[in-house]
Structure formats: structure tokens, C-alpha cells
């Protein structure tokens, strides 16, 4: 059965995570009420795909914005005193706004994709880990003797949970 260990603060939680990592177990989930500032220092580097979404969203927006302004001007030209139909200074403003628009929208999509939101299945959770406790969840493929490690690291309670981590 998957197990959920509760810790009183982030120091002990990260200590436990580092111990599991030392044993070669990587498939754990930490649940905390605040972002864990020191996760990268203590446990390991995290990567996130969000940046690619932001970057390519911005790029796509820039192309789309310029295509919108220039394309429609060429398709429906309004000649004003011989001024250029495709006028760069104003069209760059449109390009700029659409870059940000699509960049922002793609960043949200990227965030939802990275977190697999909306989550429809039940996953292991302890409501107190959203208030003032810190939790670590491991799956059922992990040996029972790991529990001793968790206790050594300062777990105040280890409970079995039905849902996967």
C-alpha cells in the first residue's frame, strides 16, 4: 500500500527526501503548504516544460500578430497620402501585444499540462499538508524498511493511504 509520512517542518521533510534519494528511490511526492525553496539544494534539480511553452507561445504570437496586421492591410489596403501600406512602427506595436497575449495563454496551458491539471483521479493527499504539516508519499513498490528511514528523518506519523502518490 502507498504510505504517507507527515513531518512537522520542511527541514525534516527535505532530510527524508534526501535519504530516499540516497537509497536510489526517486518516485516520491512531497506535499507542502509553501514552496520548498531548498528542494534543489537538498534533493535534486527539477525541470519544468513551462519555459518552452512560454517561449514558443511568444514566438507564435509575434508571427501571428505581424501576419494579422500586415496581412489584413495588404488584403484591404487603405491608401492614405502615399504612406506605406505595411507600416512597421504601428505594426510592431500590434505584434508586441499579440506576442504577450499568446505568450501568456501558452504559459497557462504549459502550466496546466506540466501539472496534468485538471486532476480528475483521486491521489494521495492529507489536508493538513496544506495547512502546517509537510507530507511525503511513496508508492507500494517501496520496501517497508524505508519507513524506518522516514522515522529517523523525523516523521511524526506514517499512515497507509489507498490512493496512488
Amino acid at each position, binding site marked *: 500500500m502507498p504510505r504517507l509520512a507527515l513531518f512537522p517542518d520542511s527541514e525534516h521533510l527535505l532530510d527524508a527526501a534526501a535519504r530516499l534519494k540516497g537509497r536510489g528511490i526517486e518516485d516520491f511526492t512531497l506535499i507542502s503548504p509553501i514552496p520548498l525553496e531548498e528542494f534543489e539544494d537538498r534533493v535534486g534539480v527539477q525541470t519544468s516544460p*513551462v519555459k518552452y511553452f512560454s517561449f514558443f507561445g511568444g514566438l507564435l504570437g509575434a508571427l501571428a500578430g505581424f501576419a494579422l496586421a500586415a496581412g489584413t492591410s495588404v*488584403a484591404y489596403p487603405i491608401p492614405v497620402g502615399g504612406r506605406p501600406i505595411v507600416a512597421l512602427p504601428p505594426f510592431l506595436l500590434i505584434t508586441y501585444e499579440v506576442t504577450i497575449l499568446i505568450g501568456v495563454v501558452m504559459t497557462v496551458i504549459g502550466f496546466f499540462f506540466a501539472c496534468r491539471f485538471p486532476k480528475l483521479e483521486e491521489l494521495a493527499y492529507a489536508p493538513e499538508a496544506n495547512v502546517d504539516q509537510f507530507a511525503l508519499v511513496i508508492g507500494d513498490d517501496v520496501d517497508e524498511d524505508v519507513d524506518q528511514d522516514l522515522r529517523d528523518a523525523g516523521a511524526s506519523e506514517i499512515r497507509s493511504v489507498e490512493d496512488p502518490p
Partner: protein
Amino acid sequence: MAEAGKSLAYHARHEKSWVTATAEQDNPPTFAEVNEDVVRSIVETGPGYWWILGVTVVLTFLCFFVPWFYQLEVGLQASGMNHPVVWGTYLANFIFFIGLSHSGTLLSAVLHITNSSWRKAIYRSAEAMTLFSLMTAAMFVMVHVGRVWFVHWSTPYPNQMGLWPNFRSPLMFDVMAITTYLTASWVFIYMGSIPDFAAVRDRTSGWRKKFFTIWAMGWRGTHREWHHLSQAYTFFAVFVIPLAVSVHSIVSWDFAMSIVPGLHQTIFAPYFVCGAIYSGTAGIVTLMWVLRRAFKNFDRYILPIHFDNLGKLLLVLSLIWTYINICEIFTGWYSGSSGEMEMLKFRMFGFYAPLYWEMIAFCAFLPLLLISKKIRRNLTAMLWISIAINIGMLTERFIIVATSLPRQYLPDAWGFYFPSTVEFLITFGSFGIFLTLFLLFVKFVPSISIYEVKETLPEPRPKGEN
């Protein structure tokens, strides 16, 4: 591990340094108390709340929608706008509300990037102010255009009329900028609130539980989710800061690109951006004061230091604003152009001179009081100064519109503008819209960021280690 390797936020949490205003109190709130206090602000609703909400809804209906429908019925003659002053109070209010919206961006994005922890207790409400003032501003566009049922013609959509917007027009820049800003503000406030929706979800029942479960999207607070959120949030901040600057620059170009003395000025973009942040920051001060009074225990999160810091910001902004005003007058005068001179004469000594000097008094001189720490820490004084600044800024926008257009180059085309009753009512009613939206917000979204306030507090200690 080397101390230097730890982030500022780490120090903030563990060492009660200067950034941790909330933790510096004698008896800082615990993690659990933060949840309790914020959830209470959502679920416990007294009769006072319903009374105020009722008043604002009635105000919105009677002072905004009824006059507006009357104006739709009889046309724009219901307003005081006529040739040559075809832009009036509606656009002044539009600029004012767009300006008010710049506060949220400043607090949530600029101060996020610069790692200023003191923003954490107050930025959520500032963001809400951004969103709602933008929505109110968008309403003024609808009111101003007259035939609102054609407003979709200003958006680029395929149609069989052969009709495409002219993207060389500053009004089109405006449509794009405001659409983007509205979208980005929605997204910004929602993304930052997801962990808090989850926190409220865990502590409520009934329809609220369902509501917050949907909005929380299944957030658990795993280390991966936090990491993705912090990445996404930083990118947002980076996107939104230049956006906010561009939005108010573009609003200023609506005016500055016309060849009208008093509007046709290079300095208009920075002038508008500075004015926007100025009035927005004053707006936050007013809002903080109200929130602090309205909700139990919020005085443990919104502290005198927040007013102090915002006061310093206001002082700096007022000096920049004054400087730009002097530049504006000086360049007009130095040009020697008779058109500019007539406009300046009308603005400073004409019919609207009392409003002009009121603006100078409220926005240039009164904020100089903020140089004293005693005044910055005196919440009542801060409240009145912030309200005065916003009255001054609303006047400023009115003066820009109402004293430039009547004095253009040809004296026989001069005119005069005075707002009609409908315009006065709609201006008054727009505050009803803003307040109604904000009152609904405090019951549906945690108005103080739970997780970010916790970040500034000392962590709970294990039993026996106190």
C-alpha cells in the same frame, strides 16, 4: 552549506530579517491561523456586507445602467460632448480606471521580480483591483462609442462586409492592448490563487466546497506543482511588466497622436505611465485601509510597514509626476506657438482653473507630507492622502480632455465642454461597478495570499523544540 547560496526568501522565513514584516510582530500568526483568518473572511458574512453590497448594486443600476440606457435611447446628445469637444468625461474616466489598474501589476510583477517580500500580504487585492478597474474601463469604451452594438467592428474577425480594422490607428493599438491586458490580468490572478483555492477547498463544505474544488483543479501542493507554478509565475511577471507599460503608453497615444495643442506631446507616454502607477498605488493604500478594517485579524497581515513602503513609493511618484508636469508646461511655453499659449492660458486661468490648481495641490504638494515617517505610519492620514491623490488624478484626466480640445488652432472653431447630468451619473455609477465586483471578489477568492504570507512566517517547530 554556504549561507550565500540560500535565497532571500529562505532568510526571510528563517531569520526574521527586514523583509519579513508579518513575522516581525510580537506574536506573528501561525500557519494554521493564516488559513483560519483568510477562510473566515470568505465564509463569515455579516449584515454589514450585505448592506454595502446592496447599496453598490443599487448605485450601479440607478447611476450607471439607467442613464446609459437613456443615452442609448436618445443618442450621444445626452452627453455634453459636441463639436469640437467630442471626447469628454467618459474618456477621462476610461484613462483613470486604466491607470488604477497599474497598481496590481506593480505589486505582483515588479515586486515579485525584485523579491520584495512585503508585497505578499497585499498583492492579491491589488491584482483584483487591476482586473476590476480594467473591466470598468472597458465599460466606458462601450458607453463612449454611442452605438455599442457595433463595437465588435473594432475587432479583426472575418466578415462579408469587406471590413477590416485599420491597424495604423492608435485606437486599434488600444483594442489589442486592453484585450491582452484583461486576459493577462485574469490569468495572473487565477494562477496565483490556485494553491489558495485548494486551501479553502479543504476547509469549507456545501456549494463552496464544490466551487473551490473546481477552481483548485486538483492542486495538492506537490514539489512538482510548486516548481511549475513558480516557473510559470515568473514568466507571467516578465510578460506583464512591459505589457502594463505599453498599455498606458498606447492609451496616451490615443491623445498624443492627434494634432491638438495640449495633447500632441512626446512626453505623454511616460506621463501617463507614471500617473497610472501613481494613482494605482494610492488606490491600493485606500483599499488596504478598508480591508484592514473590514475583516477580523487582517490587521495582523496588513501592517503599518505596508503603508510606510507604499507611502515612500507615492512620494517618489509624486515627484516624478510633478517634474513631468513642469516639463509639459515649459515645452508648451518655450515653443511660443500661439496655439499652445492659448491652451495653457485656458487650462491654468480659464474656466477650469480651480480644477487645475486643485490637481496641483492634491497631486504635487499634498504628497510631500509623506516625507515624514510619522505620517506614512499614520493610517488615517494615509487614507486621506491616498483619496486626495486619486481625486487629483481623476481631475487630471478630465483636464487633459476638457481643456485641450476646446482650444485648437482656429479661434473661430473654439468651443466649451461641460459634462451633462448623464455623464455625472455614469461617472458616479462606475464606482458602483468597481465596488460591486470587488465585494463579490472578497467572497469568492482569498483576498490575502495564504501561501505567500506563510512563506514570510517562521515555520512551525516540531513539538519539544521550541
